[in-house]
């Protein structure tokens, strides 16, 4: 290209692959807006290959989820807090997550939800699209169901799981080869990393009392993985002060290595369920219902109060219910997985910043309850006088 004398260089002068390179770095929300710039941009952003490239590189952020619960005769709806690229709580309410929905997984831009009232729901939180797997209608996303998921007893009798490939006609049963049990432990839950699901099962023979089961989503086979050898091990509950992060380096020879050695400042600082390490950050929370992150530098890390970056205060929700997932805001669409686009619903956007509108009703309820108590108290007082 010769030296140009035009006033302003334009992006459109750049070769298309460079324009893609620039656009692919933008967050999903900006990309949706960029579709209106011009036809060329629109066609790039809608291209399935571009969407996949964007999904690959988009930052992985936390998605904090509080399942619905009832406490002290009060009902709390399910709700999610999304974080944006800069790790700030998003101003947008994840409207695809309804008050009764329970979150079961977050995988490559899509989340999987279920509730008592409806069938399993697959949703893209960033674009607001969702699809119910009501009447089973590319082979990239699979839904795994544990047949006795919601029954707490009797335990130890699950020896198969149900697999559904998005776009398929029906669910399939995949049996455990060793007639071994597959029941997972509720607390760490089931996680998906790199195309496989992992969960912990009881194992009396292991010094840990448990073993990791992995299910390869592509090959659809199970593997039992020994926990790393450790001298002074003891399993703990919620309260930990010292934390070691081990990673599974190789599934075949089952080798583990210690990635981080983390010292928490006190018993008041805890780690959430499911995921808590996002790239070079660890997510933690304290007994005052504040959520923080802390940078992981080096291998030995002492978490100091002063270096914890506060993310938010989650107010009246209970941290025992707090779940945290890895989420990526992507443009992944659901069209490929439904029959001729049937059944896809788009939920209108809702601007409901966490801690603003959301708790208005709740605090109003509480204040009316307080008023009633005061009235009763005054009434009792009158009677006794």
């Amino acid at each position, binding site marked *: *290209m*010769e*030296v*140009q004398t035009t006033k*302003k*260089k*334009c*992006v*459109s*002068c*750049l*070769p298309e692959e*460079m324009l893609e*390179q*620039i656009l692919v*770095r*933008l*967050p*999903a*929300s*900006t990309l*949706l*807006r*960029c*579709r*209106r*710039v*011009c*036809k*060329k*941009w*629109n066609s790039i952003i809608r291209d399935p290959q571009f969407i996949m490239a964007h999904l*690959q*590189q988009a*930052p*992985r952020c936390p998605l904090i989820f509080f399942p619905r619960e009832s406490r002290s005769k009060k009902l709390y709806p399910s709700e999610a807090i999304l974080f944006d690229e800069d790790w700030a709580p998003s*101003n*947008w309410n994840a409207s695809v997550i309804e008050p009764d929905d329970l979150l079961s997984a977050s995988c490559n831009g899509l989340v999987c939800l279920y509730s008592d009232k409806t069938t399993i729901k697959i949703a893209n*939180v*960033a*674009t*607001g*699209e969702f699809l119910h797997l009501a009447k089973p209608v590319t082979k990239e996303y699979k839904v795994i169901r544990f047949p006795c998921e919601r029954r707490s007893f009797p335990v130890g009798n699950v020896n198969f799981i149900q697999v559904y490939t998005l776009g398929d006609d029906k669910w399939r049963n995949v049996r455990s080869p060793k007639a071994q049990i597959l029941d997972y432990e509720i607390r760490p839950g089931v996680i998906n990393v790199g195309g496989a699901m992992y969960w912990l099962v009881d194992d009396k023979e292991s010094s840990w009392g448990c073993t990791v089961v992995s299910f390869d989503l592509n090959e659809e086979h199970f593997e039992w993985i020994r926990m790393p050898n450790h001298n002074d091990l003891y399993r703990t509950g919620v309260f930990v002060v010292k934390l070691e992060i081990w*990673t599974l380096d190789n599934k075949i020879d089952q080798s583990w290595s210690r*990635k981080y050695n983390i010292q928490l400042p006190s018993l008041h600082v805890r780690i959430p369920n499911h995921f808590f*390490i*996002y*790239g*070079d950050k660890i997510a933690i929370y304290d007994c005052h219902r504040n959520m923080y992150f802390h940078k*992981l*530098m*080096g*291998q030995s890390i002492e978490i100091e109060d002063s270096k914890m970056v506060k993310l938010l205060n989650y107010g009246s929700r209970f941290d025992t219910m707090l779940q945290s997932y*890895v989420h990526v*805001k992507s443009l992944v669409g659901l069209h490929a997985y439904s029959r001729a686009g049937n059944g896809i619903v*788009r*939920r*209108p*956007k809702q*601007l409901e910043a966490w801690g603003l509108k959301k708790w208005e009703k709740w605090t109003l309820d509480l204040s009316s309850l307080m008023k009633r108590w005061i009235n009763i108290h005054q009434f009792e007082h009158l009677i006794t006088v």
Partner: protein
Amino acid sequence: MEVDKGKGEAEETRKVAEADRDTVTLKSSDGKLFEVSKEAAARLSTVLAGMIAGGSIDDNGTDLKQIGSEALENVVDYCNKHANSIPSAALISSSISFNTAPFKEPEEWERKFVDRLSHDALFDLVEAANFLGMERLLDVTCHKISEMMKGKSPDQIREVFNIKNDYTKEELEEIRQELAWAFYDD
């Protein structure tokens, strides 16, 4: 002032070059000569590495007809700055983190380096980086351009980047309708 600074650095480069003579001379489309350390050029540019290895480097100035003098000066400047910088702790630590991001965040000096460029100079530099196969410089410049798009309306983006709106009103409305449910603000 910018030019003076550039000249100063170019002179400095020449001094360094004279000291070890391990440099290559590059010639811009408008005939200006620039010298850059052979090591840095080979490390940062796949095209220059290929030329050095293939012996197609001209001692009197390798012709780079596609790159203007201003862009080439920036390329050389970047190579020199890169050679002198020590990777930050953040870059080292991210190599052992779990989710490896394909794009590494620009470092502070790289940010400053692209921030001082004019609009046109930035685009010339992207093209030069692309032509010379300079992956890291391409990363840094693309990052800068994408930063310029964030938080802007379609109208603002068109204005900043000089893009013609080829939509009809009806077409725009159609897309707006389709995206009415999406997770963004306007």
